[in-house]
């Protein structure tokens, strides 16, 4: 039996007692009562209530009844409140005197494969203000003067509801101790303004790998409102939470994000904490190790800058954007991934200003936020020629001994449809291997023509490209990957459906263009790097990935290590692969003196490293050439694949080549000491 029932029964008994006693008392107040104090004076004998005593008697009875009624009412209400519903009020009192404070958890750090901090945390003092402060012009002006910010900016920050309408809005971050002290000493002048300590992201390498690492920002309305009921691992964000918004920060948000601590505190009516109880410590997010190696990453960045600088010296004024990737082809680990131009992620700390945001999204600045390595789509140019050769071999369009004689001008589709080789002087007779080495176009025109007129395998070339992973995303653990495009007849019909029917048809010229990687084909630098991983690995591509391990919370060892997985496997004849390998080796050491000069000086601990690779030059009408260079090493037992693309930087062998060489220089600790200037026009 619970207390409630007891109370009700007790109340009923009380009511019964009152009723019984009232009935019992009726017996005493008989009409003809003998008054023991004043003698027996029957009421009637006095006649019609003329004496004061009788007159007043009924009035006093009424008075007592009135008093009794008032007090009975109070007692009745008190009974219901304190005996029947006291639990309810007890709860309300508990709500009043306790507050649950959430303590933010530090975000996990992002480390390179050797534990070098790429993204860390640092404490920062923040000035926040409630939205109502914006209406108080004097306070806002005072604050603006103190912080050295324009009045309008301070006011806009205060009114910005992105952190939630009810919570205090961030006005300024990284405020000096002097300002904090001033505000705290003059608290009465700054009503609604508060100082908070936050943990902010810190980027020791500034612009390095910015697109890869991403940035954080306060939780968006979308993230706050997400319905996570059917996803146990999902995080329920509170307004003001710092959440990964791009790159690795977004990809591994669930690992990096800590668990908020909670503390129940006793407060008084003014919200002052008077005591603490039940604390749940905040759990910092886990540190993660990336496959990135800072040394190689830096080489990718500086190599790219080098390549762009060279291109600019050669007169390519539009150069400035590009990408450089270094992958361990044995396990898919990405050792370096650089993009140009880059940006400083610390401009996102404490909320990015609109001006900076606009600049980062301006075409004039070549979109620094764009991760070109995985999202940039370009013509593959000649770097695709090894795949074209393999397709020709596999579908019997060519044999290893087939020879095409290059005169510099190829008229395989008829005199009126003649096409130049990049070397207008002609290469002379070429077999497949030398065609790869010299990047001789007529051989590949022939292949394209052969496939076009093939009855059995008109799409054999595209099939081969797709089998090697083009036209689909690579599966890297990073968002925003583009899938590229392998064009064919069906694609062209669909793409040009609004045009005349002759424009929709798949022509022999389309095929010959595709065979040399020009025209409508689109690839990402990462896709091409994966293709060369496969070439180096005899057909096996490992899934590219960035996460190496999650560091366990106690700091020692890994809580979770990434297991390499195979992305795809292409079965190729070993002889055909050897042919391609030899052809690619020739590119480095035979095709041009300059390239050979720059790569003949790669030494690993005194031993020369043999490389293989391919240059490429994409031709886009109205723009300067897009330079490609992809290489792998060591030749006999390949491990490192380095791919670089430089937008509008001229020929691949005279631009992107420098980036690739610099990365190998960093890998083997063997910087490029050759001063030969490459004027190679190989496409």
């Amino acid at each position, binding site marked *: 039996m619970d207390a409630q029932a007891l109370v009700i029964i007790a109340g009923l008994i009380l009511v019964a007692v009152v009723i019984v006693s009232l009935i019992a008392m009726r017996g005493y107040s008989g009409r003809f009562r003998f008054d023991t104090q004043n003698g027996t004076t029957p009421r009637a004998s006095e006649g019609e209530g003329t004496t004061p005593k009788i007159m007043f008697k009924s009035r006093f009875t009424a008075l007592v009844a009135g008093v009794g009624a008032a007090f009975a009412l*109070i007692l009745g209400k008190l009974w219901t409140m304190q005996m029947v519903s006291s639990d309810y*009020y007890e709860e309300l009192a508990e709500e009043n005197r306790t507050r649950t404070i959430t303590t933010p958890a530090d975000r996990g750090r992002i480390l390179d494969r050797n534990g070098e901090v790429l993204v860390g945390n640092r404490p920062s003092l923040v000035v926040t203000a409630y939205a109502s402060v914006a209406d108080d012009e004097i306070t806002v002006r005072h604050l603006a003067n103190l912080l050295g910010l324009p009045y309008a900016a301070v006011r806009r920050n205060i009114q910005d509801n992105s952190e939630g309408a009810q919570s205090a809005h961030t006005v300024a971050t990284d405020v000096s101790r002097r300002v904090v002290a001033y505000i705290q000493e003059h608290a009465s002048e700054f009503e609604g303004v508060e100082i908070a300590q936050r943990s902010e992201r810190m980027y020791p390498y500034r612009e390095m790998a910015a697109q890869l690492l991403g940035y954080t920002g306060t939780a968006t309305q979308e993230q706050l409102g997400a319905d996570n009921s059917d996803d146990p691992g999902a995080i329920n964000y509170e307004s003001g939470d710092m959440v990964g918004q791009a790159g690795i920060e977004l990809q591994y948000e669930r690992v990096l994000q800590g668990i908020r601590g909670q503390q129940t505190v006793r407060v008084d009516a003014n919200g002052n904490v008077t005591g603490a109880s039940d604390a749940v410590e905040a759990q910092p997010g886990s540190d993660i190790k990336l496959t990135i190696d800072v040394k190689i990453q830096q080489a990718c960045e500086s190599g790219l800058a080098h390549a762009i600088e060279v291109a600019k010296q050669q007169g390519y004024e539009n150069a400035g954007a590009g990408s450089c990737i270094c992958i361990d082809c044995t396990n898919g680990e990405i050792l370096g991934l650089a993009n140009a131009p880059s940006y400083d992620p610390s401009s996102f700390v404490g909320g990015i200003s609109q001006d900076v945001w606009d600049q980062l999204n301006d075409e004039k600045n070549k979109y620094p936020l764009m991760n070109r390595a995985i999202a940039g789509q370009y013509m593959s140019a000649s770097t695709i020629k090894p795949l074209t050769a393999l397709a020709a071999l596999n579908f019997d369009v060519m044999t290893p001994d087939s020879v095409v004689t290059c005169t510099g001008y190829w008229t395989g589709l008829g005199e009126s449809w003649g096409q130049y080789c990049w070397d207008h002087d002609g290469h002379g007779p070429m077999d497949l291997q030398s065609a790869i080495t010299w990047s001789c176009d007529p051989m590949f025109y022939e292949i394209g023509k052969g496939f076009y007129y093939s009855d059995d395998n008109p799409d054999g070339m595209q099939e081969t490209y797709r089998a090697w992973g083009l036209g689909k995303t690579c599966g890297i653990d990073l968002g925003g990957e583009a899938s590229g495009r392998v064009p064919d007849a069906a694609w062209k019909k669909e793409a040009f459906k609004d045009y005349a029917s002759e424009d929709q048809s798949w022509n022999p010229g389309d095929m010959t263009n595709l065979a040399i990687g020009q025209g409508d084909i689109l690839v990402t630098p990462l896709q091409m790097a994966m293709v060369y991983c496969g070439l180096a690995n005899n057909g096996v591509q490992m899934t590219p990935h960035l996460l190496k391990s999650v560091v366990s919370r106690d700091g020692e060892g890994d809580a979770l290590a990434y297991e390499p997985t195979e992305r795809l496997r292409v079965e190729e004849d070993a002889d055909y692969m050897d042919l391609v390998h030899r052809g690619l080796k020739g590119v480095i050491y035979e095709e041009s003196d300059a390239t050979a000069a720059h790569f003949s000086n790669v030494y690993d601990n005194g031993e020369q490293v043999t490389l293989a690779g391919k240059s490429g030059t994409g031709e886009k009408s109205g723009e300067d050439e897009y330079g490609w260079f992809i290489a792998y090493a060591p030749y006999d037992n390949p491990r490192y694949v380095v791919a670089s693309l430089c937008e509008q930087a001229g020929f691949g062998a005279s631009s992107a080549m420098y980036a690739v060489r610099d990365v190998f220089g960093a890998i083997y600790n063997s910087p490029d000491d050759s001063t030969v200037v490459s004027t190679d026009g190989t496409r």
Partner: protein
Amino acid sequence: MPSRAQHEQAAKRESLKIVNKRQARKRGSLRDAVFIPVAVATLLLVAFGCFVVWTASLSIEEASFTRQLLGVGIGLFLAVVAWNIDYRMFANWSHALLVIDILLIFSPFIPGLSYEGGGMTGWIRFPVIGLTFQPVELVKLVTVLYMASRTAEYNGTIDNLRDYVKLCVMLVIPFACILIQGDLGSGIVVFVAGAVVIMIGGPKKEWVLSTIALLVGAVVLFFAVNSITTAYFDSPLIAPYRLNRLLVFLDPEGSSSTDEGYNLLQSLIAVGSGGFFGRGIGSADASQSGAGFLPEAHTDFVFALLSEEFGFVGGLLLIALYLLLILGTIFVAVRTENIFGKLVAVGIVGMWTFQIFENIGMCIGLMPITGIPLPFISFGSSSMMVQLMVVGVVQSIWRHRTKAA
């Protein structure tokens, strides 16, 4: 050497002294001069009140325990003075009492006396000694004396409707003055006390009932007209916020966003969470009052503080003491042969009953929120002094209960 005559004179003086003493002992034996139940109830209430104020002083800075004790001291002195005065002298002072009453009501507006501080109005500050006082407290007693002296003229039966109306008008004068001064709560206390005096004074039942009906009708009419002017002319007779303040007790949780609603809700929580035995003393246990959630915890909402600390038991004890005090006073009224004395006593009963009902009722959501103190308990020396003086008057009525002077 003293003469014989001198000796005789001395002896006579001596014997007179003895006779006087004996006489005094006979006439003024304590049980005869003091009505014990009322005295005991008063002292227990004051002790209880002091204890409650002391607990409040632990967490509320303004609740100065020593100031409260000073008020009790002065109050006890005033009570003894009042007890020693033959209250019957006031019976013929009716005009003077009215003048004093109105002077008191408007004294806060007299330059040199008026005192305003911390949002308080209706206070005076005696020059030189610097003591602050709320004259409206004393107005309650003076009005009761005034109405009793007026009503007593009819010797217990008011046969003439004109006389009844005259009395009603006389009550309306101080009531209206207090309203003008801006203290609705105290005005209603004075009105109820005076109304009780008139009702006991012997008017015909029909008149009283029709007066009540008239009052109810007038209030209903007022709100009807108010709603019409608000809806059609956009000019309410009473400012909406004032109206809401009065009506907030009907829906405390729905109006907790307003100041009054918040105060009321905190009061309800304090009372309700007290439970049967209360939560004890100190901010850790009685958090509503101890941690500052309950506003005015030592003055207007002192009952909520008491209920939180001492629970239903404490509230029951308080109400029992009040009942003893009030029923004792009614007993005094019954026993007094003097009509004026009876009427003063019932006026005091009316004042106490309404003040207690209104104050406690406000704390537990039965009555609208008005700022009147709980007699003998609330912090504040004005109320304490006057209430003790009122008890002195009751004792004076008891002491002079026989008709013969």
